[in-house]
């Protein structure tokens, strides 16, 4: 046996209370989410893309001396040049200016639809989820039946019948669009309402509104954000779809959808007229999808490292 000095066998002072210390620093929920989101290269790319597009939507039309509606038939259908960076359309209008005006419209539609869906959906879903029981059953049954109505068909019908315009379109989209958000919020609320801090709050005498607004809804924010981020590209898609059917915003207003649809007949000869709006439709949808995905992954507890 190796020689070990006798004093090594004296009792060591062990502070057992030290043993209960936790070694790793803990991160707050949102900080963790932000960190994980930032690691997602694709999602960060999406964020940058979105910032660029929004920037151009705001400042793009001011960058040229052209106006989105002024006709200049002499210069109709000219390809991109130093004069007209994106070329001109069949009425001689500058495509660059119209693209960024169109960006404003398309983004506005997307955002409005998403926000309205948000409000109706959050209210409906949180009440239904929190109340539970009969109220919940009735509210969700109604939503289920409404959900059974094919979304695009309903939107088309409404656009056919009523005056075409921004307002009609947004109303048409949100008529059944809120149901998805309502379901998600309801799911979250039902999960959360059984947690102890809700019970504590109730014991302290908080009324329903306070519980909903201070506890349940903020804690569902993650899922709400994700759903909203993924609703916007869907609305932009629907707007483009309607435009292709001739049900888009009326001239001379331009949305990406109407610009692309107008460009179709002469595609072979003037491809730039389709190229720019179509590309930006795709890029914007891509950006929102990728950011939405990134958010969803960053919020997923199972993916914590």
């Amino acid at each position, binding site marked *: 046996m190796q020689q070990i000095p006798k004093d090594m066998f004296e009792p060591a002072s062990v502070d057992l209370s030290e043993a209960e210390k936790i070694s790793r620093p803990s991160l707050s929920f949102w900080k963790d989410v932000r960190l994980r989101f930032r690691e997602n290269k694709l999602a960060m790319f999406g964020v940058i893309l979105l910032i660029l597009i929004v920037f151009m939507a705001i400042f793009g039309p001011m960058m040229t001396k052209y106006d989105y509606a002024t006709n200049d038939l002499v210069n109709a259908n000219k390809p991109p040049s130093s004069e007209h960076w994106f070329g001109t359309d069949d009425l001689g209008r500058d495509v660059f200016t119209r693209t960024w005006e169109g960006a404003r419209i398309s983004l506005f539609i997307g955002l409005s639809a998403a926000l309205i869906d948000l409000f109706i959906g959050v209210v409906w879903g949180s009440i239904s989820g929190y109340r539970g029981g009969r109220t919940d059953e009735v509210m969700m049954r109604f939503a289920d*039946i409404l*959900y059974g109505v094919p979304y695009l068909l309903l939107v*088309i019908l409404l656009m056919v*019948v009523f005056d075409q315009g921004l307002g009609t379109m947004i109303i048409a989209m949100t008529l059944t669009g809120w149901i998805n958000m309502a379901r998600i919020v309801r799911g979250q609320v039902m999960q959360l309402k059984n947690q102890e801090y809700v019970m504590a709050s109730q014991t302290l005498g908080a009324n329903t509104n306070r519980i909903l607004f201070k506890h349940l809804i903020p804690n569902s924010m993650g899922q709400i954000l994700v759903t909203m981020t993924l609703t916007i590209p869907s609305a932009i898609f629907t707007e483009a779809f309607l435009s292709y059917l001739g049900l888009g915003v009326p001239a001379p207003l331009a949305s990406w959808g109407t610009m692309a649809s107008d460009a179709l007949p002469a595609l072979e000869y003037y491809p730039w007229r389709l190229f720019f709006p179509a590309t930006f439709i795709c890029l914007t949808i891509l950006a929102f*999808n990728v950011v939405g995905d990134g958010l969803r992954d960053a919020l997923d507890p199972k993916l914590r490292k």
Partner: protein
Amino acid sequence: MMVKYIGKRVIYMLLSLFLIVSATFLLMRAAPGGPFSGEKKLPPEIIANLNKFYGLDQPWYIQYVDYLKSVSTWDFGPSFKYKGQTVNDLISSGFPVSFMLGMEAILIALAIGVVLGVFSAMKHNKWQDYAAMVIAVLGISVPSFIMATLLQYTLAMKLDLFPVARWESWAHTVLPALALAATPMAFIARLTRSSMLEVLSNDYMRTAKAKGLSRGAIIIRHAIRNAMLPVVSYLGPLTAGILTGSFIIEKIFGIPGLGLHFVTSITNRDYTVIMGVTVFYSILLLASVLLVDILYGLIDPRIKLSGGKKGA
């Protein structure tokens, strides 16, 4: 059990259908230039037909009931704009074409989507996974009609590899089916992948390995079978997407399907056709969602007997 499950779904379906049929009726009455508005700038034969069908001289609630009756007997009435043609005529001439296009697209989307998804899951976190998922995100982000235009412009117009339009041979079906299938294929790939990843992390996969089964047997018999369940559920929304996607695809490629008739009727404000086709489509969609639900109930043994006996 099973009957109750189906029964409930059928009732919901009928309620939704009722909603949409009523909505079409109401909207018809509200439409400017519709048969119920004052402007009778239409040829007298059409007015006569419409009157006969809609009983325009009768109070609206009787018209409503009559309308419901005729819908339930599969009679959608005369076309607003095409003299002598009924909506049913248009449906029977156009639907088979659209059906074929749709089926092709569904098959492509399923076959390629599932394979891509499984492949991605097996190569999780390696470059193949990442690449496949980036392609999938692109597929989801490019609307089908833009994809259609892109394909038409590059492969047909510029490279002359496929015919540009019309519906005359197998070659004519390729580009439109691809355009229709692109987005659903991407969806299915992502769905399959995440479903596979979830299944692969389950305990019974470890049990299968502990039994000494070969890798192939484990993947096919245990993993894929369970991973496919969400994909089957997706068949409902998939059908809806392909159906609505066909409107514009048929327009872009000049395919004489029901979608094209629908789009034309929208542009022409041919209200009876719009209504009739809308109702027809709704029935189609709701029926396919129901069928998918039943199919899912058959495949997942947990659904089949839930509510029935439980093991001792």
